[in-house]
């Protein structure tokens, strides 16, 4: 590929950009100018950005160049561009959360907590990313902004709801991005777009100043093209935040220095039963990862199907409660597919939602027992590779099922109890697909180590799309 301003640093990792900047081989302004040029040139194909914060990014880059020239200390992500799903508050912009309605909101007066933390580490925000309306989505489609497009095949879905995050990272626009994950919204686009994604333990990363979806299940986290970049972003965002009542008061547990420890000594099993997918590509991906990690035993997550059902019920009821006022005032301004699910959720008996929350406690207790015998569990991330945009049904083995509800089939029973998960991309042809590495609460380090080990073995990789 002929190098132009737009392709400069296109496939550089965050670690490489930060290294070049720290060593004086690259200026932050040059990196940001290249990133903005790339977004302008290539995003019309991907439709991943809904706002580009060019002026802010260039000012920030100049400040970093000045800081380096003055010999001031630089953060571990100094000079690295990143973008965020448009449910994160960005000062001076309304927080869309993928909706038409929120366009009438006043601009945010302060950045989301995680943007502040990443910028404190030297990273530079370049914009906001497309997403499914109010995060109630697994497809990456949005009737207001148009669908985000999968860089590996522009006719195909990115997965959602963090579809713009998946497309921007897989398409080389930014080395990493932030998404949110309530039922699978980081892991599904990571799988379909072929990038690494981390859904941390519930309560690990602050959700302060993000637009909520289902408070009981909402997580936020990064997507990146390497496990190391995922780790660098994750480490920079850790730490208690009193502005998010769910954020745990735990010491920061950095992982970057542990990444090279590999899989040695770790006990790894493959999720059986409910998670045994009959799709050939999904099976092949799990088998490859299991073989590379020496995982030769199956383990059953008890009542996983019920866990998914309970997550579904809680999602329906809590999200409906969040949107009641808007449903009364502006029901016609919603995507009909989102509106009708929210209305149905408002009409569902509250007793079921409370029972689902009680089942959540039971299920967590039972699943945590499994981690006495294993350190990590492997499971498919999605039941298939990326479907076509607009596709309504998918075939999984011999079973035909609706796309919209079932892309999260394997992610919902995990986020339901807040377990940390890293999705690793397996570069199958013609389309990649992800595998979940699930660990005990607060053991993101184990999942990230395994992801890095798989990358070094060549089993996991974010494939470069033919753009």
């Amino acid at each position, binding site marked *: 590929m002929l190098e132009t301003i737009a392709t400069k640093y296109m496939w550089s990792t965050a670690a490489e950009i930060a290294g070049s900047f720290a060593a004086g081989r690259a200026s932050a302004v040059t990196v940001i100018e290249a990133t903005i040029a790339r977004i302008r040139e290539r995003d019309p194909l991907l439709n991943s950005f809904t706002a580009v914060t060019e002026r802010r990014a260039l000012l920030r880059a100049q400040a970093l160049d000045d800081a380096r020239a003055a010999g001031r200390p630089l953060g571990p992500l100094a000079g690295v561009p990143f973008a965020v799903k448009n449910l994160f508050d960005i000062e001076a912009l309304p927080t869309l959360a993928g909706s038409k309605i929120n366009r009438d909101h006043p601009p945010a007066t302060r950045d989301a907590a995680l943007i502040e933390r990443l910028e404190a580490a030297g990273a530079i925000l370049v914009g906001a990313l497309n997403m499914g309306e109010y995060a109630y989505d697994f497809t990456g489609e949005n009737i207001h902004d148009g669908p985000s497009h999968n860089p590996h095949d522009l006719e195909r879905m990115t997965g959602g709801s963090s579809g713009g995050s998946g497309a921007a990272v897989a398409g080389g626009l930014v080395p990493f991005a932030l998404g949110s994950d309530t039922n699978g919204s980081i892991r599904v686009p990571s799988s379909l777009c072929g990038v690494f994604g981390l859904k941390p333990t519930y309560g690990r990363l602050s959700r302060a100043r993000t637009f909520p979806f289902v408070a009981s299940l909402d997580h936020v986290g990064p997507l990146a093209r390497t496990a190391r970049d995922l780790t660098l972003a994750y480490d920079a965002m850790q730490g208690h935040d009193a502005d998010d009542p769910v954020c745990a008061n735990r010491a920061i547990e950095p992982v970057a220095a542990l990444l090279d420890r590999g899989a040695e000594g770790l006990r790894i099993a493959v999720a059986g039963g409910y998670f045994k997918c009959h799709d050939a590509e999904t099976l092949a991906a799990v088998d490859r990862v299991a073989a590379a990690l020496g995982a030769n035993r199956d383990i059953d997550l008890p009542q996983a199907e019920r866990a998914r059902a309970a997550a579904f019920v809680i999602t329906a*009821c809590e999200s409906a409660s969040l949107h009641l006022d808007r449903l009364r005032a502006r029901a016609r301004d919603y995507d009909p597919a989102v509106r*009708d699910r929210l*209305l149905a959720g*408002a*009409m569902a*008996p509250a007793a079921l939602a409370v029972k689902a929350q*009680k089942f959540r406690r039971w299920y967590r207790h039972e699943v945590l027992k499994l981690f006495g015998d294993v350190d990590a569990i492997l499971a498919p991330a999605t039941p298939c590779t990326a479907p076509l945009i607009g596709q309504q049904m998918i075939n999984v083995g011999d079973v035909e099922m609706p796309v919209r509800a079932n892309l999260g089939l394997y992610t919902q029973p995990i986020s339901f109890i807040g377990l940390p998960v890293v999705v690793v991309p397996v570069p199958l042809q013609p389309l990649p697909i992800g595998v979940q590495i699930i660990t005990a609460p607060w053991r993101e380090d184990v999942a990230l180590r395994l992801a890095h080990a798989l990358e070094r073995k060549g089993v996991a990789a974010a494939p470069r799309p033919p753009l």
Partner: protein
Amino acid sequence: MKKRSMKRSKKRKATSKQNTIQVKRGGKRSTSRARRTPAKTPTDFLDPLIAASAQALGLAVDPGWHGSIKFNLGLILRLGALVDNFSIPDDTEPGPVFHA
């Protein structure tokens, strides 16, 4: 726990069988009047629920949305039944923890 769940599950099965019989009986009755009124589907009980809920919550539901709301409500209830028919001890705390 497993034994209790199974016992409860059997009980539920019995209940749902009774429900099925009632529906079938109702179905027979409506078949005999089929020329006057169309046969009711098993989810027709959702129609008054949707109307009453919309009224109680002050939600204006366009008639064109009714079919989709009904489908989604039916799905929630079907999946909710899967949760409901699992026995959980009374003293189980719900998932979220509130710290005062």
